[in-house]
């Protein structure tokens, strides 16, 4: 790991005291989310890696924002906590209006996009890929913002390694009006592949569901894995000398 550069106390230039996120330290891996019949389903594991060590195994990376949105983040966890603080303030001020209206997922997504893009323009990015999903007034919304401010809305999104491993599966097997069970099965399929093939994945995940009615974030649980292929037990049968 790189050690933090000592703060430059010299009087040279305005850049001397800047503190930018140069490298991510404690990172979360992929988040996968899909739209289903009643709303949005989002899954993320609970690992926070410190470089190549799996340091924290109970990091909650799915959070409720206001009444209508669910935010999932991958990348630097401290920046995620900063984003949550900002969003807290945003929701608080919105509630203080007390006008019967509340910020929906589209609005929160727009706020996040502006925040991420502006930070990147200052060369001080929030090192996260965010997934925002929610339902308001019967409208389902699922969007993503990356650390450089790329944002888009889609029926199924994934961050990090999920882009390479989960999206091909989702593109093939997602369809409109999945039921809750089908949606969970599909997400679990993606998370299982990620567990097998992503080195920073942990076998402890949460699945969150958001519908018009409300939000449920599940308790952490593990996926079943299968290691019983005969080729794994006896890889060199008939091929002595190879491995």
């Amino acid at each position, binding site marked *: 790991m790189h050690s933090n550069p000592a703060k430059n106390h010299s009087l040279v230039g305005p850049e001397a005291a800047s503190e930018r996120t140069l490298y991510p330290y404690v990172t979360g891996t992929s988040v996968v989310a899909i739209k289903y019949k009643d709303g949005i389903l989002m899954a993320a594991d609970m690992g926070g890696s410190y470089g190549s060590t799996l340091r924290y195994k109970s990091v909650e990376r799915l959070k409720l924002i206001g009444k209508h949105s669910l935010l999932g983040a991958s990348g630097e966890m401290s920046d995620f906590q900063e984003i949550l603080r900002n969003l807290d303030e945003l929701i608080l001020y919105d509630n203080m209006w007390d006008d019967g209206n509340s910020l929906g997922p589209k609005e929160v997504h727009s706020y996040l996009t502006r925040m991420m893009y502006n930070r990147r323009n200052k060369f001080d990015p929030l090192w996260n890929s965010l997934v925002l999903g929610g339902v308001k007034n019967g409208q389902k919304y699922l969007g993503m913002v990356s650390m450089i401010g790329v944002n888009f809305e889609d029926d199924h999104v994934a961050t990090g390694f999920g882009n*390479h*491993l*989960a*999206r*091909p*599966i989702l*593109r*093939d097997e997602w369809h409109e009006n999945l039921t809750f069970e089908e949606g969970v099965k599909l997400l679990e*399929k*993606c998370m*299982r*592949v990620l567990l*097998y*093939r992503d080195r920073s994945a942990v076998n402890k995940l949460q699945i969150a569901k958001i519908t018009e009615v409300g939000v449920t974030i599940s308790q952490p649980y593990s996926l079943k894995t299968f290691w019983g*292929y*005969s*080729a*794994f037990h006896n*890889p*060199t*049968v*008939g*091929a*002595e*000398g*190879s*491995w």
Partner: protein
Amino acid sequence: MPNDKSHNTNIAVYSPLRGCVFFRSKITPLNGFRSLGLFIVKLSSASAIDLSDTLRFLIPSHLNCRRFSVCLVAEKKGVFSESKMSRAAVEVPPKGGFSFDLRRRNEMLSKKGVPPPSFRKTGTTIVGVIFQDGVILGADTRATEGPIVCDKNCEKIHYMAPNIYCCGAGTAADTEAVTDTVSSQLQLHRYHTGRESRVIAALTLLKSHLFKYQGYVQAALVLGGVDVTGPHLHTIYPHGSTDTLPFATMGSGSLAAMAVFESKYHEGLTKEEGVNLVCEAICSGIFNDLGSGSNVDVCVITKGQKEYLRNHLLPNPRTYVSSKVFSFPRKTVFN
């Protein structure tokens, strides 16, 4: 054009063991560089051949200098030109091991701004799967040269032996050459032993070859076949390491294809299930990876039989075909 005899000759002598190169424009006799294994010699005038003979004579054999080269650069009067360069390699018993002289030359060239020639990469999805009767290999058919598709329908499943086939990803020339070489070696081995080739024979030949070249031969291979000991599937990486697996993917589209395998593979696949699974994995690579595309090739190898299904699936047909040939309306004028 001044001829050889009247040149002011520049000599560089270096010992590969010591790794020093020394260039002097005026050569003067010096004794002090013995420890460096260098000799700087003054010679009045000489042609290239005389020079190297003289040098061979001068440099004593007790010096810890196994091998050296003499590089002559002739200088035109007033203008330094490197146009006349001759190298006389003096014969000394080789110490053995690898010779990285050309690599030094390449580094020197790139420092001077000569770009290295680019290679054609295949940017691929290749897969292999073991099913109940044998092995199924699959590959896409796109070959890329950077951002351009240079071959829309190339063949990535190479023949190694009647019962062994090999898919190749990475630099196209490397995969072709290495599979051709080992295929010939296997043929000779078959003549020598009088028996069907075994998959581990191909595996060992390929892995030794790739290891010998320390990863410079950029070929990532999926080798599959059926021999007397049963069906086998192996992956071989450019540095020479191998894996034995029930299902394998390589290439830029390997993650997309592996996602399909990890979620859908089970033991005891039938032939139809296997071919379908392979096609799905390759299609996943074709549609989700930019480096892979066009069609799907499949090869099914079972005991005593093989089926090479070239262009088994064509999921990227030309969709819009106009019946009219494109024509300009009459009296169209373009300036």
